[in-house]
């Protein structure tokens, strides 16, 4: 698990240096920053921040590396294992526990001045606190919501639903339209489990019960899964959900072929750019026994073995200035994690953003537990088996719960 690229770059640099091609070394500190790629705007945005920072701090060089989300965890794993970890990185908060428990993440409490801390919204700070120590700062936040195609609803004579019963009835009307799928149901790859949690939570269930065991064998989970399965069987979803990733579902929605999808705020800028004529509305998830949405945060983390912590922190504080945060949140379509940006007109008055932000008071976060990725994978596999009809919802969920409890050591 070495880094051929870095090694070869080093050799190249060395040989160039020997021939005198490299300008005289400046006394500068290099801060390596691994950036998760949210969209094509992410890399250029952080480069702009870095350039502005370097203009003010010529002795610090910010070395930005943009890595796609799909390979980010693998990349960081190999970097850490190979002893070439960056100084700071954006990570999924769900990985933070692993990083923290292995001593890879640096607690930032000693760097965090009270005034800097007060710029953040507390709800989003909380998931980064592990055993009383702040292991990272929220860098991006989103809540999920339901998106309906208003034209299709009008055409079908359906009203956007507030409860699951209404959702089911409305879907039946929508499905009767030609060349239209009522409900876009994700069944492939990343976040297939999240699509189920939306239903699980609003039916009153939870990922883990109060005693820490899996909540998948609860009656609420069965109700949630049965509803999805019934909608597949009755032709209320697109056919064969297991062939549709999140992006595939969203593409169908942009094409105006799907009445309802569950989504994150980042879809809105995409719709505005790619399907400007689409009439949509952002609404809360249908309710069963509870109101819920999925809150997801990403974390800015500092690595424990960084040798440029002070410089890295200086850059972090710079990057959290309001002007940058505003640009980032607007560009990517995130919900703000800092108070000042959250107070901006765009985030309080825009109906789309407000629609997503409305769920924050009752948002649920993924539990911060060990082996989360594996537990999520068990859930994904089970949902796929249920959607495909390989197991009954009842059997599948019970087996999944047992497997998750075993992974949890319970």
């Amino acid at each position, binding site marked *: 698990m070495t880094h051929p690229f870095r090694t070869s770059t080093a050799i190249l640099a060395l040989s160039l240096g020997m021939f005198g091609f490299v300008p005289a070394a400046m006394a500068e500190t290099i801060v390596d920053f691994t950036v998760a790629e949210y969209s094509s705007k992410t890399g250029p945005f952080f480069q702009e921040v870095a350039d502005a920072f370097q203009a003010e701090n010529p002795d610090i060089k910010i070395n930005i590396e943009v890595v796609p989300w799909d390979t980010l965890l693998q990349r960081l794993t190999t970097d850490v294992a190979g002893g070439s970890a960056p100084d700071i990185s954006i990570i999924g908060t769900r990985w933070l526990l692993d990083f923290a428990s292995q001593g890879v993440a640096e607690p930032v409490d000693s760097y965090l001045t009270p005034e800097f801390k007060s710029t953040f919204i507390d709800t989003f700070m909380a998931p980064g606190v592990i055993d009383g120590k702040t292991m990272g700062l929220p860098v991006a936040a989103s809540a999920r919501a339901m998106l309906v195609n208003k034209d299709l609803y009008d055409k079908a004579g359906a009203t956007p639903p507030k409860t699951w019963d209404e959702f089911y009835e409305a879907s039946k009307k929508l499905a009767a339209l030609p060349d239209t799928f009522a409900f876009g149901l994700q069944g492939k790859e990343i976040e297939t489990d999240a699509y189920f949690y939306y239903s699980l939570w609003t039916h009153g269930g939870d990922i883990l019960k109060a005693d820490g065991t899996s909540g998948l064998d609860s009656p609420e989970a069965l109700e949630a899964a049965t509803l999805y399965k019934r909608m597949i069987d009755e032709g209320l979803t697109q056919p064969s959900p*297991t*062939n549709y990733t999140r992006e595939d579902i969203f593409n169908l929605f942009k094409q105006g*072929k799907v009445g309802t999808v569950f989504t994150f705020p980042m879809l809105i800028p995409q719709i505005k750019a790619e399907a400007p004529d689409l009439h949509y509305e952002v609404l809360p998830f249908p309710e069963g026994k509870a109101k819920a949405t999925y809150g997801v945060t990403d974390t800015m983390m500092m690595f424990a073995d960084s040798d440029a912590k002070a410089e890295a922190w200086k850059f972090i504080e710079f990057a959290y200035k309001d002007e940058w945060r505003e640009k980032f949140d607007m560009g990517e379509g995130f919900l703000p994690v800092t108070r000042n940006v959250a107070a901006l007109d765009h985030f309080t008055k825009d109906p789309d953003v407000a629609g997503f932000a409305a769920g924050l008071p009752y948002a649920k976060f993924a539990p911060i537990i060990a082996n989360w990725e594996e537990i999520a*994978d068990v859930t994904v*596999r089970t949902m796929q088996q249920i*959607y495909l009809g390989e197991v009954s919802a009842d059997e599948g969920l019970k087996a999944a719960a047992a497997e998750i409890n075993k992974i949890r050591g319970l």
Partner: protein
Amino acid sequence: MANRIQKSVPMMMILPGLALAIAIIGYPIFDLGWTSMHDVSRFGKLTGFNGGENFAEVFVDPLFWESLWRTGIWTVAVVGGTLAISMPVAMILNDDFHGRGVARVIIMLPWAISLTMTAVVWRWALNGRAGLLNATLMNAGIIDQPIEWLATASTAFVVEILVGILVSIPFTTTILLGGLSSMPQDAYEAAVVDGASGWHQFRYITLPLMKPFINIAIVLNVIYVFNSLPIIWVMTEGGPANGTDILVTYLYKLAFRFGQLGKAAAISLVMFFVLLAFTMLYVALVSRNDRDDAAPEEEVKE
């Protein structure tokens, strides 16, 4: 004495190369073995010796056995299919015809594209609603409803095998073409004079003379295909419901998603030994056959 030195000189001369090979091949395997007997943190730090615990975990894991079985099907189907197609393709390309150069380039072209890119393109082409394949089939009137190729494991796996065959053809054709062009023409001429049909020429001249080339194509392809991650990973990530997982995709998930490097190391080691056993067995079989074939000739000489 001098004789002994003379004898040891060649040994001495290959020693540095041998040592290098052992270091380069041997060390990672040793490291893998060492890792597989430890508890490993998700960042590769060994946190304690646990003997065969990783292996025990692997061997009771039903997903491991399912993946192993599927790896067998995958390897046999892809390598078998590749050979079955490459052989006639190579023979056609070996014949002199107008535009042969262009035809050869077309066959070799997929080789120039990385496996991952090919897989990405196929993933798009196979998309149920927006994919080119369904659009083509529907336009041609072959199907009237789009087929969701990757929605169920059974169709997805077959499609993946076909793509696997497609990308293995250029390499295999090259090997076979090399063999065919070194074939002695007089044997064919003699056969034609004796009235041998095309099939007979193939069965009794081409095939036996091509054996060494076919064997090398089999061994190399088995090694590549057995270990090949990109096609399956890009198209289905081993899903749905782990239905297209082969050992290497399962291993990748374990190592880089779940952070279970110890268990992943154990599976890698198992994979290494499976391949080693196959290669040794195959080479042994082939050389025994060769000896059997060669034996009568030697008798004649005596």
